Protein backbone atom coordinates (compact mmCIF):
# COMPACT_ATOMS: atom_id res chain seq x y z
CA UNK A 1 0.00 0.00 0.00
CA UNK A 2 1.37 3.40 -1.02
CA UNK A 3 0.63 6.70 0.68
CA UNK A 4 1.33 10.14 -0.64
CA UNK A 5 0.12 13.61 -1.47
CA UNK A 6 -1.12 15.23 -4.65
CA UNK A 7 -1.14 18.88 -5.56
CA UNK A 8 -3.16 20.71 -8.19
CA UNK A 9 -0.63 23.59 -8.12
CA UNK A 10 -3.19 26.33 -7.53
CA UNK A 11 -1.95 29.78 -6.62
CA UNK A 12 -4.65 30.99 -4.27
CA UNK A 13 -4.87 34.02 -1.98
CA UNK A 14 -4.68 33.11 1.69
CA UNK A 15 -8.11 34.29 2.86
CA UNK A 16 -6.88 34.87 6.40
CA UNK A 17 -4.13 37.31 5.37
CA UNK A 18 -5.20 38.47 1.89
CA UNK A 19 -1.74 37.55 0.66
CA UNK A 20 -1.22 35.78 -2.68
CA UNK A 21 2.06 33.90 -3.16
CA UNK A 22 4.01 34.67 -6.32
CA UNK A 23 4.49 31.94 -8.90
CA UNK A 24 8.10 31.68 -7.82
CA UNK A 25 7.12 31.19 -4.17
CA UNK A 26 4.46 28.64 -4.94
CA UNK A 27 6.72 26.65 -7.26
CA UNK A 28 9.40 26.56 -4.55
CA UNK A 29 6.74 25.60 -2.01
CA UNK A 30 5.61 22.61 -4.07
CA UNK A 31 9.19 21.38 -4.40
CA UNK A 32 9.59 21.78 -0.62
CA UNK A 33 6.35 19.85 -0.05
CA UNK A 34 7.52 16.99 -2.27
CA UNK A 35 10.89 16.73 -0.50
CA UNK A 36 9.16 16.87 2.86
CA UNK A 37 6.83 14.06 1.75
CA UNK A 38 9.87 11.82 1.31
CA UNK A 39 11.41 13.02 4.57
CA UNK A 40 8.33 12.09 6.62
CA UNK A 41 8.17 8.65 5.01
CA UNK A 42 5.48 9.01 2.38
CA UNK A 43 5.79 7.02 -0.86
CA UNK A 44 4.30 9.19 -3.60
CA UNK A 45 4.16 12.79 -4.73
CA UNK A 46 1.82 13.59 -7.62
CA UNK A 47 1.47 16.90 -9.42
CA UNK A 48 -1.32 18.18 -11.66
CA UNK A 49 -1.10 19.63 -15.14
CA UNK A 50 -2.90 22.84 -16.07
CA UNK A 51 -2.57 25.41 -18.80
CA UNK A 52 -4.26 28.40 -17.25
CA UNK A 53 -4.03 30.59 -14.14
CA UNK A 54 -4.35 30.25 -11.19
CA UNK A 55 -2.29 27.07 -11.70
CA UNK A 56 1.44 27.01 -12.39
CA UNK A 57 2.05 23.40 -13.31
CA UNK A 58 2.02 23.42 -17.11
CA UNK A 59 5.18 21.34 -17.30
CA UNK A 60 5.07 18.57 -14.68
CA UNK A 61 8.04 16.54 -15.96
CA UNK A 62 10.33 19.55 -15.48
CA UNK A 63 9.19 19.94 -11.87
CA UNK A 64 9.25 16.21 -11.20
CA UNK A 65 12.71 15.87 -12.73
CA UNK A 66 13.97 18.59 -10.41
CA UNK A 67 12.37 16.84 -7.44
CA UNK A 68 13.76 13.47 -8.57
CA UNK A 69 17.27 14.90 -8.38
CA UNK A 70 16.72 15.87 -4.74
CA UNK A 71 15.00 12.71 -3.49
CA UNK A 72 16.01 9.07 -3.26
CA UNK A 73 12.92 7.03 -2.60
CA UNK A 74 9.84 9.06 -3.48
CA UNK A 75 7.73 7.86 -6.42
CA UNK A 76 6.87 10.77 -8.70
CA UNK A 77 3.51 10.80 -10.37
CA UNK A 78 0.94 13.13 -11.91
CA UNK A 79 -2.60 14.16 -11.06
CA UNK A 80 -3.30 14.26 -13.91
CA UNK A 81 -1.44 14.21 -17.22
CA UNK A 82 -3.74 15.40 -19.99
CA UNK A 83 -4.12 12.50 -22.42
CA UNK A 84 -6.59 14.55 -24.46
CA UNK A 85 -4.63 17.64 -25.44
CA UNK A 86 -1.02 16.46 -25.15
CA UNK A 87 0.57 14.70 -28.07
CA UNK A 88 0.88 11.05 -26.95
CA UNK A 89 4.29 10.93 -28.63
CA UNK A 90 5.51 13.76 -26.41
CA UNK A 91 4.05 12.05 -23.32
CA UNK A 92 5.88 8.84 -24.27
CA UNK A 93 9.16 10.73 -24.67
CA UNK A 94 8.87 13.03 -21.64
CA UNK A 95 7.87 10.36 -19.12
CA UNK A 96 10.38 7.81 -20.40
CA UNK A 97 13.06 10.47 -20.01
CA UNK A 98 11.86 11.27 -16.49
CA UNK A 99 11.77 7.56 -15.71
CA UNK A 100 15.45 7.19 -16.64
CA UNK A 101 16.52 10.22 -14.62
CA UNK A 102 14.47 9.11 -11.59
CA UNK A 103 15.78 5.53 -11.86
CA UNK A 104 12.32 4.11 -12.28
CA UNK A 105 10.58 6.13 -9.57
CA UNK A 106 7.91 7.34 -11.99
CA UNK A 107 4.35 6.53 -12.88
CA UNK A 108 1.60 8.72 -14.22
CA UNK A 109 -2.09 9.28 -13.98
CA UNK A 110 -3.98 10.13 -17.13
CA UNK A 111 -6.99 12.44 -17.13
CA UNK A 112 -8.97 14.52 -19.53
CA UNK A 113 -8.64 17.88 -17.75
CA UNK A 114 -11.40 20.10 -16.48
CA UNK A 115 -10.90 23.39 -18.28
CA UNK A 116 -12.90 23.63 -21.51
CA UNK A 117 -10.74 26.17 -23.41
CA UNK A 118 -7.63 23.98 -23.05
CA UNK A 119 -9.00 21.84 -25.88
CA UNK A 120 -9.23 24.64 -28.47
CA UNK A 121 -5.98 26.18 -27.19
CA UNK A 122 -4.29 22.92 -28.16
CA UNK A 123 -6.24 22.51 -31.38
CA UNK A 124 -8.71 19.93 -30.11
CA UNK A 125 -12.49 19.66 -29.75
CA UNK A 126 -13.84 19.19 -26.22
CA UNK A 127 -16.69 17.03 -27.53
CA UNK A 128 -14.00 14.53 -28.56
CA UNK A 129 -12.68 14.21 -24.99
CA UNK A 130 -13.33 10.47 -24.64
CA UNK A 131 -12.31 9.50 -28.20
CA UNK A 132 -9.09 11.52 -27.73
CA UNK A 133 -8.35 9.77 -24.44
CA UNK A 134 -8.96 6.38 -26.05
CA UNK A 135 -6.96 6.90 -29.23
CA UNK A 136 -4.08 8.83 -27.67
CA UNK A 137 -3.57 6.22 -24.99
CA UNK A 138 -3.74 3.38 -27.51
CA UNK A 139 -0.80 5.03 -29.26
CA UNK A 140 1.09 5.84 -26.02
CA UNK A 141 0.69 2.21 -24.93
CA UNK A 142 2.29 0.98 -28.17
CA UNK A 143 5.08 3.56 -28.19
CA UNK A 144 6.37 2.23 -24.87
CA UNK A 145 6.08 -1.41 -25.90
CA UNK A 146 7.02 -1.53 -29.57
CA UNK A 147 10.34 -0.39 -30.97
CA UNK A 148 9.09 0.60 -34.42
CA UNK A 149 5.58 1.95 -34.63
CA UNK A 150 3.49 2.40 -37.75
CA UNK A 151 0.34 4.16 -36.77
CA UNK A 152 -2.63 6.03 -38.18
CA UNK A 153 -5.54 7.53 -36.22
CA UNK A 154 -8.19 10.21 -36.31
CA UNK A 155 -6.49 12.93 -34.32
CA UNK A 156 -2.76 12.88 -34.87
CA UNK A 157 -0.53 12.93 -37.91
CA UNK A 158 0.39 9.34 -38.93
CA UNK A 159 3.67 7.66 -38.00
CA UNK A 160 5.85 5.34 -40.05
CA UNK A 161 8.79 3.53 -38.44
CA UNK A 162 8.73 5.80 -35.44
CA UNK A 163 10.80 4.92 -32.39
CA UNK A 164 10.05 6.81 -29.20
CA UNK A 165 13.24 7.56 -27.29
CA UNK A 166 14.51 7.02 -24.72
CA UNK A 167 13.06 3.54 -24.51
CA UNK A 168 11.44 2.82 -21.12
CA UNK A 169 14.05 2.08 -18.44
CA UNK A 170 15.03 -1.62 -18.58
CA UNK A 171 12.17 -2.09 -21.06
CA UNK A 172 9.53 -1.56 -18.36
CA UNK A 173 7.03 1.19 -19.23
CA UNK A 174 5.96 3.58 -16.48
CA UNK A 175 2.86 2.25 -14.74
CA UNK A 176 -0.30 4.10 -15.74
CA UNK A 177 -3.30 5.04 -13.65
CA UNK A 178 -6.45 6.29 -15.37
CA UNK A 179 -8.31 8.94 -13.41
CA UNK A 180 -11.95 9.83 -13.78
CA UNK A 181 -14.72 11.04 -11.52
CA UNK A 182 -17.71 9.66 -13.37
CA UNK A 183 -16.95 8.58 -16.94
CA UNK A 184 -17.48 4.81 -17.19
CA UNK A 185 -15.47 4.79 -20.43
CA UNK A 186 -12.31 5.61 -18.46
CA UNK A 187 -12.90 2.84 -15.90
CA UNK A 188 -13.43 0.56 -18.90
CA UNK A 189 -10.19 1.78 -20.48
CA UNK A 190 -8.19 1.12 -17.30
CA UNK A 191 -9.74 -2.35 -17.05
CA UNK A 192 -9.09 -3.20 -20.69
CA UNK A 193 -5.35 -2.58 -20.35
CA UNK A 194 -5.07 -3.97 -16.83
CA UNK A 195 -3.81 -0.53 -15.73
CA UNK A 196 -4.63 1.18 -12.44
CA UNK A 197 -7.78 3.17 -11.83
CA UNK A 198 -7.64 6.25 -9.63
CA UNK A 199 -10.68 8.04 -8.25
CA UNK A 200 -9.97 11.45 -6.77
CA UNK A 201 -12.55 10.74 -4.06
CA UNK A 202 -12.67 14.42 -3.10
CA UNK A 203 -15.26 17.14 -3.61
CA UNK A 204 -17.97 14.57 -4.47
CA UNK A 205 -20.06 12.07 -2.53
CA UNK A 206 -18.52 8.65 -2.11
CA UNK A 207 -21.21 7.04 -4.28
CA UNK A 208 -19.39 8.21 -7.43
CA UNK A 209 -16.17 6.61 -6.21
CA UNK A 210 -17.95 3.42 -5.26
CA UNK A 211 -19.78 3.07 -8.58
CA UNK A 212 -16.70 3.75 -10.73
CA UNK A 213 -14.40 1.45 -8.76
CA UNK A 214 -17.00 -1.35 -8.84
CA UNK A 215 -17.31 -1.02 -12.61
CA UNK A 216 -13.51 -1.00 -13.02
CA UNK A 217 -13.07 -4.10 -10.85
CA UNK A 218 -15.77 -6.00 -12.71
CA UNK A 219 -14.32 -5.12 -16.12
CA UNK A 220 -10.73 -5.82 -14.97
CA UNK A 221 -11.84 -9.39 -14.34
CA UNK A 222 -13.83 -9.45 -17.59
CA UNK A 223 -10.60 -8.73 -19.51
CA UNK A 224 -8.89 -11.52 -17.55
CA UNK A 225 -6.25 -9.50 -15.76
CA UNK A 226 -7.20 -11.17 -12.47
CA UNK A 227 -10.04 -11.27 -10.02
CA UNK A 228 -12.02 -8.09 -9.27
CA UNK A 229 -10.18 -7.94 -5.92
CA UNK A 230 -6.82 -7.92 -7.71
CA UNK A 231 -7.63 -4.81 -9.74
CA UNK A 232 -5.34 -1.86 -8.94
CA UNK A 233 -7.18 0.99 -7.28
CA UNK A 234 -6.00 4.38 -6.06
CA UNK A 235 -7.98 6.95 -4.13
CA UNK A 236 -7.65 10.58 -3.23
CA UNK A 237 -8.62 12.12 0.05
CA UNK A 238 -8.92 15.60 1.41
CA UNK A 239 -7.81 16.30 4.96
CA UNK A 240 -6.89 19.01 7.40
CA UNK A 241 -5.61 18.09 10.83
CA UNK A 242 -4.78 19.56 14.19
CA UNK A 243 -4.15 17.61 17.33
CA UNK A 244 -7.43 18.89 18.64
CA UNK A 245 -10.43 18.43 16.35
CA UNK A 246 -12.02 21.81 17.18
CA UNK A 247 -8.77 23.61 16.37
CA UNK A 248 -8.67 21.97 12.96
CA UNK A 249 -12.22 23.08 12.16
CA UNK A 250 -11.60 26.60 13.41
CA UNK A 251 -8.37 27.02 11.46
CA UNK A 252 -9.56 25.42 8.23
CA UNK A 253 -13.00 27.07 8.05
CA UNK A 254 -11.89 30.38 6.46
CA UNK A 255 -9.99 28.41 3.80
CA UNK A 256 -12.96 26.13 3.25
CA UNK A 257 -15.42 29.00 3.00
CA UNK A 258 -13.42 30.70 0.25
CA UNK A 259 -11.92 27.67 -1.51
CA UNK A 260 -12.00 27.78 -5.31
CA UNK A 261 -13.87 24.51 -5.82
CA UNK A 262 -16.57 24.44 -3.17
CA UNK A 263 -16.36 27.79 -1.38
CA UNK A 264 -19.42 29.96 -0.80
CA UNK A 265 -21.58 26.85 -1.00
CA UNK A 266 -22.40 24.30 1.68
CA UNK A 267 -21.01 24.59 5.18
CA UNK A 268 -17.86 22.75 6.23
CA UNK A 269 -20.03 20.41 8.30
CA UNK A 270 -22.38 19.63 5.40
CA UNK A 271 -19.51 19.09 3.00
CA UNK A 272 -17.72 16.81 5.49
CA UNK A 273 -20.87 14.75 5.80
CA UNK A 274 -21.59 14.51 2.06
CA UNK A 275 -18.01 14.02 0.78
CA UNK A 276 -14.86 12.29 2.10
CA UNK A 277 -13.45 15.63 3.36
CA UNK A 278 -12.10 15.14 6.88
CA UNK A 279 -11.22 18.10 9.08
CA UNK A 280 -10.25 17.04 12.57
CA UNK A 281 -7.70 15.14 14.61
CA UNK A 282 -5.19 12.64 13.16
CA UNK A 283 -7.31 9.86 14.68
CA UNK A 284 -10.38 11.11 12.80
CA UNK A 285 -8.38 11.10 9.57
CA UNK A 286 -7.25 7.54 10.31
CA UNK A 287 -10.80 6.39 11.00
CA UNK A 288 -12.24 8.06 7.92
CA UNK A 289 -9.50 6.78 5.64
CA UNK A 290 -9.93 3.24 6.93
CA UNK A 291 -13.63 3.52 6.08
CA UNK A 292 -12.83 4.03 2.38
CA UNK A 293 -12.22 0.26 2.15
CA UNK A 294 -15.86 -0.28 3.07
CA UNK A 295 -16.95 1.04 -0.30
CA UNK A 296 -14.03 0.26 -2.63
CA UNK A 297 -12.42 -2.84 -1.07
CA UNK A 298 -8.66 -3.17 -0.46
CA UNK A 299 -6.75 -0.70 -2.57
CA UNK A 300 -3.17 0.12 -3.48
CA UNK A 301 -2.61 3.86 -3.30
CA UNK A 302 -3.92 6.65 -1.09
CA UNK A 303 -3.08 10.25 -1.98
CA UNK A 304 -4.07 13.17 0.21
CA UNK A 305 -4.79 16.71 -0.91
CA UNK A 306 -3.28 19.02 1.71
CA UNK A 307 -1.91 22.12 -0.01
CA UNK A 308 -4.72 23.91 -1.82
CA UNK A 309 -7.01 26.88 -1.17
CA UNK A 310 -4.24 29.25 -0.10
CA UNK A 311 -2.96 27.29 2.91
CA UNK A 312 0.49 28.65 3.81
CA UNK A 313 3.54 26.43 3.30
CA UNK A 314 4.26 26.24 7.02
CA UNK A 315 0.79 24.82 7.66
CA UNK A 316 1.14 22.32 4.83
CA UNK A 317 4.46 21.09 6.20
CA UNK A 318 2.83 20.62 9.60
CA UNK A 319 0.16 18.54 7.90
CA UNK A 320 2.90 16.39 6.37
CA UNK A 321 4.48 15.92 9.79
CA UNK A 322 1.21 14.65 11.19
CA UNK A 323 0.62 12.39 8.19
CA UNK A 324 4.11 10.93 8.47
CA UNK A 325 4.27 10.59 12.24
CA UNK A 326 0.74 9.72 13.26
CA UNK A 327 -1.56 8.85 10.39
CA UNK A 328 0.33 6.84 7.79
CA UNK A 329 2.14 4.47 10.20
CA UNK A 330 -1.24 3.36 11.56
CA UNK A 331 -2.79 3.12 8.10
CA UNK A 332 0.18 1.10 6.83
CA UNK A 333 -0.29 -1.40 9.61
CA UNK A 334 -4.05 -1.62 9.23
CA UNK A 335 -4.05 -1.74 5.44
CA UNK A 336 -1.13 -4.07 4.80
CA UNK A 337 -1.68 -7.42 3.19
CA UNK A 338 -3.34 -6.41 -0.05
CA UNK A 339 -1.65 -6.60 -3.42
CA UNK A 340 1.05 -3.89 -3.67
CA UNK A 341 0.83 -1.17 -6.32
CA UNK A 342 2.97 -2.01 -9.36
CA UNK A 343 6.33 -0.25 -9.41
CA UNK A 344 9.41 -0.39 -11.57
CA UNK A 345 11.68 -3.35 -10.60
CA UNK A 346 14.37 -0.87 -9.52
CA UNK A 347 12.04 0.58 -6.88
CA UNK A 348 11.99 -1.15 -3.53
CA UNK A 349 8.56 -1.75 -2.11
CA UNK A 350 8.15 -0.21 1.30
Amino acid at each position, binding site marked *: MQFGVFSVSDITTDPTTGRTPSEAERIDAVVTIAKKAEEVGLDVFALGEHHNPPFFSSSPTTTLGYIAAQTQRLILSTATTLITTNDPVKIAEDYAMLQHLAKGRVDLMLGRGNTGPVYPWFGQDIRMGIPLAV*ENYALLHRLWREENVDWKGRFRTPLQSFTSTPRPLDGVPPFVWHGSIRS*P*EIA*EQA*AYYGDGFFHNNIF*WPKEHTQRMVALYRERFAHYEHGTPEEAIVGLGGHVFMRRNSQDAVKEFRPYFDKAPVYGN*GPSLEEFSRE*TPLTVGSPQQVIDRTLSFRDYVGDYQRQLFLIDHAGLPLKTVLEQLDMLGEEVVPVLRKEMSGGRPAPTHPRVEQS
Partner: protein
Amino acid sequence: MTRIAVVSAGLSVPSSTRMLADRLAAAAVAALGPGATSEVVELRGHARDLADHLVTGFPGTSLRAAIDTVQNADGLIAVTPVFSASYSGLFKTFFDVLDREALAGRPVLMGATAGTARHSLVLEHAMRPLFSYLRALVTPTAVFAASDDWASEDLAERIRRAGEEFAGLVARSPRPAVAPDHGFVPFDQLLAGG
Protein backbone atom coordinates in the same frame (compact mmCIF):
# COMPACT_ATOMS: atom_id res chain seq x y z
CA MET B 1 -48.53 1.95 -11.58
CA THR B 2 -48.17 5.32 -13.23
CA ARG B 3 -46.25 7.91 -11.25
CA ILE B 4 -46.43 11.60 -12.05
CA ALA B 5 -43.94 14.09 -10.63
CA VAL B 6 -45.16 17.62 -10.01
CA VAL B 7 -42.60 20.42 -9.70
CA SER B 8 -43.88 23.69 -8.24
CA ALA B 9 -41.68 26.76 -8.00
CA GLY B 10 -44.22 28.77 -6.03
CA LEU B 11 -42.71 30.71 -3.16
CA SER B 12 -45.57 32.02 -1.02
CA VAL B 13 -47.84 30.03 1.27
CA PRO B 14 -50.49 29.54 0.09
CA SER B 15 -49.22 29.74 -3.46
CA SER B 16 -51.32 30.08 -6.62
CA THR B 17 -48.51 28.26 -8.46
CA ARG B 18 -48.94 25.29 -6.13
CA MET B 19 -52.70 25.58 -6.50
CA LEU B 20 -52.39 25.35 -10.30
CA ALA B 21 -49.91 22.47 -9.94
CA ASP B 22 -52.37 20.56 -7.75
CA ARG B 23 -55.24 21.16 -10.15
CA LEU B 24 -53.15 19.97 -13.11
CA ALA B 25 -52.04 16.91 -11.14
CA ALA B 26 -55.63 16.07 -10.20
CA ALA B 27 -56.74 16.41 -13.84
CA ALA B 28 -53.87 14.21 -15.02
CA VAL B 29 -54.49 11.52 -12.40
CA ALA B 30 -58.22 11.54 -13.22
CA ALA B 31 -57.49 11.15 -16.91
CA LEU B 32 -54.90 8.41 -16.31
CA GLY B 33 -57.38 6.40 -14.27
CA PRO B 34 -56.96 4.05 -11.30
CA GLY B 35 -53.41 3.33 -10.18
CA ALA B 36 -52.00 6.72 -11.16
CA THR B 37 -50.39 8.75 -8.41
CA SER B 38 -48.69 12.10 -8.21
CA GLU B 39 -45.88 13.38 -6.00
CA VAL B 40 -45.17 17.07 -5.52
CA VAL B 41 -41.68 18.58 -5.33
CA GLU B 42 -41.84 22.08 -3.84
CA LEU B 43 -38.66 23.78 -5.00
CA ARG B 44 -38.80 26.34 -2.20
CA GLY B 45 -37.78 23.57 0.19
CA HIS B 46 -34.67 22.93 -1.90
CA ALA B 47 -33.66 26.56 -2.54
CA ARG B 48 -30.39 26.40 -0.60
CA ASP B 49 -29.57 22.90 -1.81
CA LEU B 50 -29.97 24.09 -5.39
CA ALA B 51 -27.56 26.98 -4.81
CA ASP B 52 -25.09 24.54 -3.18
CA HIS B 53 -25.42 22.21 -6.15
CA LEU B 54 -24.41 25.02 -8.50
CA VAL B 55 -21.27 25.51 -6.43
CA THR B 56 -20.31 21.91 -5.68
CA GLY B 57 -21.65 20.03 -8.68
CA PHE B 58 -23.58 17.46 -6.67
CA PRO B 59 -26.95 17.41 -4.89
CA GLY B 60 -27.38 17.13 -1.15
CA THR B 61 -29.45 14.23 0.17
CA SER B 62 -32.88 15.85 0.11
CA LEU B 63 -32.35 17.43 -3.31
CA ARG B 64 -31.15 14.03 -4.56
CA ALA B 65 -34.49 12.57 -3.50
CA ALA B 66 -36.37 15.35 -5.33
CA ILE B 67 -34.31 14.79 -8.49
CA ASP B 68 -34.94 11.04 -8.24
CA THR B 69 -38.68 11.68 -7.95
CA VAL B 70 -38.59 13.58 -11.23
CA GLN B 71 -36.18 11.22 -12.99
CA ASN B 72 -38.13 8.11 -12.05
CA ALA B 73 -41.58 9.49 -12.87
CA ASP B 74 -43.58 8.51 -15.94
CA GLY B 75 -44.34 12.15 -16.63
CA LEU B 76 -43.74 15.62 -15.24
CA ILE B 77 -46.02 18.54 -14.48
CA ALA B 78 -43.91 21.69 -14.12
CA VAL B 79 -45.36 24.98 -12.86
CA THR B 80 -43.61 28.28 -12.24
CA PRO B 81 -44.55 31.82 -11.34
CA VAL B 82 -43.52 34.44 -13.90
CA PHE B 83 -40.56 36.49 -12.70
CA SER B 84 -39.15 39.28 -14.89
CA ALA B 85 -40.84 38.04 -18.05
CA SER B 86 -39.73 34.40 -17.68
CA TYR B 87 -39.73 31.36 -15.40
CA SER B 88 -38.28 32.05 -11.97
CA GLY B 89 -34.58 31.52 -11.33
CA LEU B 90 -35.40 28.83 -8.78
CA PHE B 91 -37.42 26.92 -11.39
CA LYS B 92 -34.63 27.18 -13.96
CA THR B 93 -31.97 26.14 -11.46
CA PHE B 94 -33.75 22.85 -10.82
CA PHE B 95 -33.69 22.04 -14.53
CA ASP B 96 -30.09 23.26 -14.76
CA VAL B 97 -28.96 20.64 -12.25
CA LEU B 98 -31.11 17.84 -13.63
CA ASP B 99 -29.28 15.35 -15.82
CA ARG B 100 -29.59 16.54 -19.41
CA GLU B 101 -31.07 13.20 -20.45
CA ALA B 102 -33.47 12.92 -17.52
CA LEU B 103 -36.53 14.17 -19.39
CA ALA B 104 -35.69 12.90 -22.87
CA GLY B 105 -38.84 11.30 -24.27
CA ARG B 106 -40.79 12.04 -21.07
CA PRO B 107 -44.21 13.71 -21.25
CA VAL B 108 -44.32 17.18 -19.72
CA LEU B 109 -47.27 19.41 -18.92
CA MET B 110 -46.36 23.05 -18.32
CA GLY B 111 -48.13 25.66 -16.23
CA ALA B 112 -47.37 29.23 -15.21
CA THR B 113 -48.95 31.85 -13.00
CA ALA B 114 -48.75 35.62 -12.83
CA GLY B 115 -50.69 38.67 -11.74
CA THR B 116 -51.98 39.46 -15.21
CA ALA B 117 -52.57 37.65 -18.49
CA ARG B 118 -50.01 39.84 -20.22
CA HIS B 119 -47.34 37.31 -19.21
CA SER B 120 -49.08 34.30 -20.68
CA LEU B 121 -46.66 33.83 -23.60
CA VAL B 122 -43.93 32.94 -21.09
CA LEU B 123 -45.24 29.41 -21.56
CA GLU B 124 -44.46 29.48 -25.26
CA HIS B 125 -41.43 31.76 -25.40
CA ALA B 126 -39.51 30.57 -22.33
CA MET B 127 -40.79 27.26 -21.00
CA ARG B 128 -41.44 25.39 -24.22
CA PRO B 129 -37.91 25.99 -25.58
CA LEU B 130 -36.46 24.83 -22.26
CA PHE B 131 -38.29 21.50 -22.43
CA SER B 132 -37.61 21.18 -26.16
CA TYR B 133 -33.90 21.47 -25.36
CA LEU B 134 -34.33 18.70 -22.79
CA ARG B 135 -36.06 16.67 -25.55
CA ALA B 136 -39.23 16.24 -23.50
CA LEU B 137 -42.63 15.54 -25.07
CA VAL B 138 -44.59 18.66 -24.20
CA THR B 139 -48.38 18.73 -24.45
CA PRO B 140 -49.84 21.12 -27.04
CA THR B 141 -51.94 22.73 -24.30
CA ALA B 142 -50.08 24.51 -21.53
CA VAL B 143 -52.01 26.27 -18.79
CA PHE B 144 -51.53 29.84 -17.71
CA ALA B 145 -53.41 31.21 -14.71
CA ALA B 146 -53.46 34.96 -14.08
CA SER B 147 -55.11 36.17 -10.88
CA ASP B 148 -58.36 36.86 -12.75
CA ASP B 149 -58.49 33.32 -14.12
CA TRP B 150 -59.26 31.94 -10.68
CA ALA B 151 -62.77 33.36 -11.17
CA SER B 152 -63.14 31.85 -14.65
CA GLU B 153 -64.64 28.50 -15.62
CA ASP B 154 -62.43 28.55 -18.72
CA LEU B 155 -59.44 27.78 -16.52
CA ALA B 156 -61.04 24.52 -15.34
CA GLU B 157 -61.71 23.55 -18.95
CA ARG B 158 -58.12 24.26 -19.99
CA ILE B 159 -56.84 22.25 -17.04
CA ARG B 160 -59.07 19.32 -17.97
CA ARG B 161 -57.97 19.40 -21.63
CA ALA B 162 -54.28 19.68 -20.65
CA GLY B 163 -54.65 16.78 -18.22
CA GLU B 164 -56.14 14.59 -20.95
CA GLU B 165 -53.44 15.45 -23.46
CA PHE B 166 -50.79 14.70 -20.83
CA ALA B 167 -52.41 11.39 -19.86
CA GLY B 168 -52.48 10.42 -23.53
CA LEU B 169 -48.77 11.10 -23.90
CA VAL B 170 -47.95 9.21 -20.71
CA ALA B 171 -49.94 6.19 -21.88
CA ARG B 172 -48.06 6.16 -25.20
CA SER B 173 -44.59 6.71 -23.70
CA PRO B 174 -43.60 3.86 -21.37
CA ARG B 175 -40.37 4.47 -19.45
CA PRO B 176 -37.31 2.67 -20.80
CA ALA B 177 -36.17 -0.09 -18.42
CA VAL B 178 -32.61 1.24 -17.97
CA ALA B 179 -31.75 4.76 -16.91
CA PRO B 180 -29.69 6.45 -19.66
CA ASP B 181 -26.57 7.15 -17.58
CA HIS B 182 -26.07 3.52 -16.55
CA GLY B 183 -25.11 2.26 -19.98
CA PHE B 184 -21.51 2.15 -21.11
CA VAL B 185 -19.62 1.29 -24.26
CA PRO B 186 -17.33 -1.78 -24.31
CA PHE B 187 -13.72 -0.93 -25.09
CA ASP B 188 -13.48 -2.51 -28.53
CA GLN B 189 -16.27 -0.17 -29.62
CA LEU B 190 -14.50 2.78 -27.99
CA LEU B 191 -11.31 1.88 -29.84
CA ALA B 192 -13.22 1.70 -33.08
CA GLY B 193 -14.31 5.28 -32.52
CA GLY B 194 -17.77 4.46 -31.27
